[in-house]
């Protein structure tokens, strides 16, 4: 594929803060919640980049800020060299054709009164693409690609299973022939056997259409299997990133290791589990210094430097593998 090594998407120190909700409606809170706190990564053409982490880690907000579904409060996002945040409404609308999104719950995005054909045609109409005949041809081709039989095209969303509705959601995103699709947990509401169908479909479509994916996922097994490269997020910051192969073969950050060890697996009933204490929760004001993971970190909880200094992302081994930790590799999951 031409230009495979030129980044399609460049995310540079992306930030999105919200004013924290106050418990007293008459006294607005001054606290700022940094949902996305300086995330940088690039996505090449035709590749899948994963954003991995637990709920509240900022992965979905990051994705929405990239697509400008929420306005970023800092940093830069460029798609094919175009600065996304600086665009006025009309050029932004045009650009949206090139970057689409698939949601976890397709049911919520599908108008129950519309037929599948109308649902897949809708984005084409919105973007003023083609006449009725061209659109029909495009919709038919797309439905065939995602495996929805033509004779079902006049049915409504409720007549389909969850997996098929997700296929319809994918068809709606891809019918515009976008270069980038953000997949926000596209399989986590589905059964295992159906998950496999959808993952296979997404891979096939990527091969056929050369589309790039930003894949938001909490399931590390799926991330390892599906992503070319990925970033592990915690409280809006990148803890570790690199190629999936390397990151899973040689995880360095205590958070990555803890996440990996928490996944229950068939055929691996071992004692090598680090059960993390506590839950993802912002540290509150005055927490701008130090490592955001320190409160739950089995390595750095009581270490001065972890409380004082925010660790920078530093390369580990190869240039592509980076870790934000003062003591990378110290936690190990060797069988106890």
């Amino acid at each position, binding site marked *: 594929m031409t230009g495979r090594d030129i980044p399609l998407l460049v995310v540079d120190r992306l930030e999105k803060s919200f004013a924290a909700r106050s418990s007293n409606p008459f006294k607005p809170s001054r606290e700022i919640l940094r949902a996305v706190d300086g995330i940088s990564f690039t996505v090449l053409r035709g590749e899948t980049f994963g954003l991995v982490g*637990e*709920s509240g880690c900022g992965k979905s907000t990051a994705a929405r800020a990239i697509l400008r579904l929420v306005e970023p409060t800092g940093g830069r996002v460029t798609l094919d060299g175009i600065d996304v945040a600086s665009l006025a409404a009309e050029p932004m609308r045009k650009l949206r054709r090139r970057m689409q999104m698939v949601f976890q719950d397709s049911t919520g995005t599908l108008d129950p009164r519309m037929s599948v054909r109308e649902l897949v045609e809708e984005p084409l109409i919105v973007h003023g693409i083609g006449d009725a005949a061209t659109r029909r041809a495009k919709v038919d081709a797309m439905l065939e690609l995602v495996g929805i039989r033509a004779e079902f095209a006049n049915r409504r969303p409720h007549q389909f*299973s*969850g*997996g098929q509705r997700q296929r319809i959601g994918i068809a709606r995103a891809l019918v515009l022939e976008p270069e980038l699709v953000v997949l926000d947990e596209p399989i986590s509401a589905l*059964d*295992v*056997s*159906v*998950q*496999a*169908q959808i*993952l*296979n479909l997404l*891979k096939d479509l990527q091969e056929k259409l050369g589309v790039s994916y930003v894949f938001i996922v*909490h*399931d*590390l*097994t*799926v991330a*390892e*299997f*599906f992503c070319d490269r990925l970033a592990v997020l915690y409280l809006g910051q990148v803890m570790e990133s690199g190629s*999936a*192969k390397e990151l*899973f073969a040689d995880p360095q950050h205590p958070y990555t290791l*803890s*996440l990996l*060890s*928490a*996944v*229950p*697996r*068939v*055929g*691996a*009933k071992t004692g090598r*589990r680090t*059960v*993390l*204490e506590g*839950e*993802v*929760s912002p540290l509150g004001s005055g927490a701008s210094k130090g490592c955001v993971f320190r409160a739950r970190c089995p390595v750095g909880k009581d270490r001065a430097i972890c409380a004082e200094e925010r660790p920078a992302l530093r390369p580990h081994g190869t240039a592509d593998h980076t870790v934000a930790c003062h003591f990378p590799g110290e936690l190990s999951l060797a069988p106890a």
Partner: protein
Amino acid sequence: MSSTTNQPPLLEVRGLTTEFATRAGAVAAVRDVSLTVRRSEKVAIVGESGCGKSTLALSILGLIDKPGRIASGQVLLEGRDLVGLSESAMKTIRGKTVSLIFQDPMGALDPIKTVGAQIIDTLRRHQPGLSHKAARARAVELLREVEVPAAERRLDDYPHHYSGGMRQRVMIAIALANAPDLIIADEPTTALDVTTQAQVLALLERVVADHGVAVLLITHNLGVVAEFCDVVQVMYAGRIVERGPTEAILARPTHPYTQALLESIPDPARIGTRLRAIPGMPPDLSAMPSGCAFEPRCFFGHGREICRTRQPAPVEIETTSGPSQVECHFATERAARASEVAAS
């Protein structure tokens, strides 16, 4: 029963069929299911959406409402049949001998009552003599037991003040309140993050061991089954198609459905290959195939005459960790082949 003691097992379900009346006639969501849960045993029912696993749980607890009904079979709790018991009789059992943990604690907890009030209600419903003060003290103990920090203070918080993981701990506390013999947990960790799931599973494992409670765990997650359960029952289209010791079944599944389910989990060892998805979808319960329900999707039996026409009877298979039962016409052949592969 082949049980070594004369005592009846804690729970024995025999030939249970649960139907729902629809415009197209009665549709069976649970078909002729039999299963046994012994004291302190952890049994999994694993299957995909619509396989009938939740309906089975609700049937056991007598929570099937119209248009549903238990068409046949028995639910024996310590030898006593629960099918047909009045609602008031069931109420003395639910929350006492058998308690239930749901996937979504927010839906199970009352949003306008404090967590403490709800635990105290549960305690006093089955122990009317308990004073409010004693119930409150017991509630604090229960919250401590499920490792809710600052239990005394958090007792007066409302469910929405709790995080998802903490709410599930509250559900476990409520389930434990009246010292049950059996907890039925329906996808208890499905809505949680992996690290919280690990915490909640570790907690559940500890409390059921401490109290000697048996667990019937309903889940779609084979990883959770592998870590948590002694015995697994694989359910497909309303029937239990394979059952036996967890380790043996997950390491060497005999039923093609169990094998296919295991193979559809992404395996890091096979990166770059396609996942082995199961083609198609589970059958429409109102239009079941006349033979084996899995035949249309089965990589082994699809198109074979016997699979298309005859419902397979359970076949007993000897595994390394005890007997298993498989509803497949080719169970013996497949098991023999699998052990040849394992031996070579």
